[in-house]
Structure formats: C-alpha cells, structure tokens
C-alpha cells in the first residue's frame, strides 16, 4: 500500500467536515416528494449508512450528492468546493463494461481524465490487490461471479483515492454468504485506506455491522427521522456479529426503523 493509503480515520467527534446538505428537497413532476428538507453533516472518515424502506428517498439523496440530479430546494456544500474526481460510486449492479477486461474497467476513471494505462498501472494493480483480485487483470466480467464483479466495481470506485465513496445497495443482489464476506472485506479495505463512505441499504444488520453513523429514513414523503451512532471500535470482525453490543445496536436501529414506518415497536 503506497499510493492508495493516504487518510487516517479520527474518532467520531474530531473529524473535519466533508460536506453538508442544507434543507435539500427533491420533488418529481411537481407532485411526488422524493425527499423532504434533508439536513446532513458528513465528516471525513465517516462510514454513514442511509437506512430505510424503498421509497424513503435514500437513493435520491445519493443521486443528489453524486450530482446526477439537481435539488428542488436547498443546497449541498463541499468543504473546499467539489473537485472532479472527489467521488467514487458503486451501484447495486456491478455496472462494468462487458467489452473491457477487469484492469481496463478499473482504469476507466483515469482514462476519462486522459491518463493512459501505463502511467497509472501501479494504482490499478494496487486497487485490484486491495479487493483480492490480483490474478484477474485480464479476465472479462462475464467470466467472474457476482461477488467478484462487485469487487471490480469497488476497485474502480476507490482507484483514484476519492474523498467520498457512494455505495447504493451494492450487495443487495448477492447471496447472504457472499454478502457477509464482502462486508468484512469492505471494512478491512476501509481500515487500510481510510476512505469516507455513504452506504445506502435496507438491511438493519448490514448498517450496524458496517457503519459508525446511521441515518434512519421514512417514506411518503422521503425524510430523515433519526440519526444514530454505532460506537463500537473498528476493526470489526466476524465476532462482532455475535456480540452483545451488536445485538443492542441492532435492536435500537430496528426500533427506530419500526417507529419511522409508523408501526408499534
């Protein structure tokens, strides 16, 4: 790890601000309120989960931060202004170019900046090592399993060392075993390179295992209902899943989610 490792994660209260959402709202067709007055302060080093049922606006929030759509009201402010290359994204599907090899896919963000493969070869190699695919440089996506494709997608998201990585339910389509493995590996990667992550999920257990901050959201209209912290130290390994801390947090989060849905806890 030479070029990708560049950030250290500070404790929760001491992190510098990365971006702020101030009263951000999104209304579709003038009638459907996808997101209502969302305020969010994201700090460097946060692993923040947006948790909620479908229709709660969590994906909309992510797309707004990604700049793929403009808010109807409110604004999103990056500290120090947003630069090209500040973002890495992982979608629910691996979203790889089927005609390109694994290495070419990971090289894409550089290629779009006009940087040829030779000049960033070591970065691509490093990113593929990090996700555990060092032997698959020349494979085509169709030759890989669903989990491996997702690893390529993650490598592509972090290869440029972005300030923020957005993940939109990246493991939702995978089987439970692959999913747990990827959760573990994702935390291990974060431990190595110290990236900031916003992670959209509808799984209480995934959000508790991965994140140190959880934003619980509710639908119709999409809004933030509660913000929680998971103050269990990293690195978290498999044992964390069976610990009492984990169970306690899962219970709190589940209760918040049930309340958000208007159900008796």
């Amino acid at each position: 790890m030479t070029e990708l490792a560049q950030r250290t994660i500070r404790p929760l209260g001491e992190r510098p601000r990365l971006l702020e959402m101030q009263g951000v709202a999104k209304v579709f067709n003038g009638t459907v309120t996808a997101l209502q007055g969302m305020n969010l302060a994201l700090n460097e080093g946060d692993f923040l989960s947006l948790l909620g049922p479908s229709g709660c606006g969590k994906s909309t929030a992510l797309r707004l931060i990604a700049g793929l759509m403009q808010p109807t009201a409110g604004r999103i402010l990056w500290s120090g202004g947003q630069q090209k290359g500040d973002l890495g994204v992982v979608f629910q599907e691996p979203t790889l170019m089927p005609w390109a090899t694994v290495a070419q896919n990971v090289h894409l963000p550089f290629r779009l900046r006009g940087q040829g493969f030779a000049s960033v070869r070591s970065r691509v190699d490093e990113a593929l090592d990090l996700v555990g695919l060092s032997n698959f440089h020349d494979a085509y996506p169709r030759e890989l399993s669903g989990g491996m494709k997702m690893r390529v997608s993650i490598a592509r998201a972090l290869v440029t060392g972005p300030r923020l990585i957005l993940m939109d339910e990246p493991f939702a389509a995978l089987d439970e075993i692959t999913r747990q493995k990827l959760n573990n590996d994702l935390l291990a990667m974060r431990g190595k390179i110290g990236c900031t992550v916003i992670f959209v999920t509808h799984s209480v257990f995934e959000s508790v295992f991965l994140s140190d901050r959880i934003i619980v959201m509710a639908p119709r209209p999409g809004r933030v209902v509660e913000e929680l912290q998971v103050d269990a130290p990293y690195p978290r390994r498999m044992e964390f899943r069976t610990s009492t801390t984990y169970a306690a947090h899962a219970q709190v989060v589940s209760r918040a989610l049930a309340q958000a849905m208007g159900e008796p806890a």
Partner: protein
Amino acid sequence: MTLADDRAAAVWDAEEARRARSARIETVARWVIPVLVVCATLGLWQWYVIAYEVPHYLLPAPTRIWEQLVTDRLILADALWVTLKITIMALAVAVLGGVLLAILFNQSRFAELVFYPYAVILQVTPIVSIAPLIFIYVKEPTARVLICAWIVAFFPILSNTTLGLKSTDHNLRDLFAIYGASRWQRLIFLQLPSALPYFLGGLRIAGGLALIGAIVAEYVVGTGGAGSGLAFRILEASYRLNIPRMFAALALIAVVGVAIFALTSFVSWFALRKWHESAIRRET
C-alpha cells in the same frame, strides 16, 4: 478408494464418455448434414432431368450447368467481378454512411429530426421504382448501380447502429457523468462499444441487401451498355434462350450471397468472441 467410490467414478466416466461422443458427433454432423442435403438435392435433380428427358432449354441438369460454367468461365468471371465490385463498394459506403449518420443522429437531435424522414422514405420506397429516376439523373453507369445498391443496404446499418447507440447501460451513463466524461469520451468509450453488436447485426442484413441492390439495379438501370454484371448476363442469356447460362450465373450469385453471409457472420463472431453473449459457446 472404496468400492462405492470406484463405482461412482466408473458411472461418471461412462456419462462423460457419452457426452464427449455426442459432442464429437455434433461437430461432424454440423458440416456433413448440410453437404449431404445439397448433394441429395442435386442428385435428385440430375435423375429427374435424365429420367424424364427434360430438354436443357427448360431445365438443365446440374452437370450441364457445370459444363456451361466451365465453357463460359471468362464471360462469367468478368460479370462476377463487376457484380462483386459493386456489392462490396455499396456495402462499404453503406457502412460508412450508415454509421456516420447514426452518430450524427445520436449527437444532434436536430439533425435526426431533419434527416430521419428522408432515410425512412428512401427505405420504404421500392428500389425498382427509384432506379429509373437514377438512370435519368446519373450518367456514370457504375455510379448508377452503386447508388441503388447503397440505398438498399444502408438503412439496416443506420437503424441498428442508432438503436445500439441508444442502448447503453443507464448506470454506466451515470458513472460516466459522475466522472465528468465529455460527450466524445462517452461516444467513444461507451456508446460505440455498446452499439457494436447491433451494428454487426445490421451488417449481416446489409451484406445480403447490397447484393440484391446491385442485381436489381443492374436489371433496371445497368442494361444500358456498360453494365455487364451477373444480372446483365442473366437477362442477355434469357433473350437468347440460353437457359444453362442463366442457371450458371444464378449459381454464382447464390455462391456470392452465401460467401457474404459467411464472411459477415465470421466478422461478427470475431469481434464479439471475447465478451458478447451471442458469440460465446456455453459449456454443457
């Protein structure tokens, strides 16, 4: 290894052997069966002509057609070359024009609104009815035929490539937008590769149509002297009631059509073999 393991292994081997055998049979059958069918058809034809003493000016026997091919080889080779040249040129211009127009339509909504109606009108109007006009307006004989063949061949390439350029994965488009890709980067790195399978599908259709266009054009406009392709030879032979030569020229046209199809299919497979579903053989 226990006895049960041994037995399992033996069963597995038999199963494997059977599968390998049927795979071998399929490999051979894929070539042998079509060849046998063609040979049988020709044999039946030959037998019918001899048995019923059909005169050669009604239906020549395959052997008679072959003889004619050999006797007329110089005339027919010349004609074949003329037709082949027109077909290849028409296909090349159709590929170039179709792809460039598709890119233009994709990049500029305005250009699409302006030109697309003409593309459709050219496509839906039968070439036989446009050809006499081209005969009047265009003096150069080769150009006449070429224009006709091009009109017939370019539309499948245009419409398929247009569809392909639109059929990019939406998430990939989003990804390109997030990474700040310019529209040219999006075109070159995302849309053109996505459109490749569609374009190649259009190419296979256009290859056959270019030949048809060349033949039809020769029938309609190319008979005015200089055009001496295969279609012209067929017309000429029919005026002289030289039926065997008609069949010989016809056989050459069929061979050219099959060759074009085989070639475009190969190109398509070769370009997509690494990644596209259509070109990948699944293991069973």
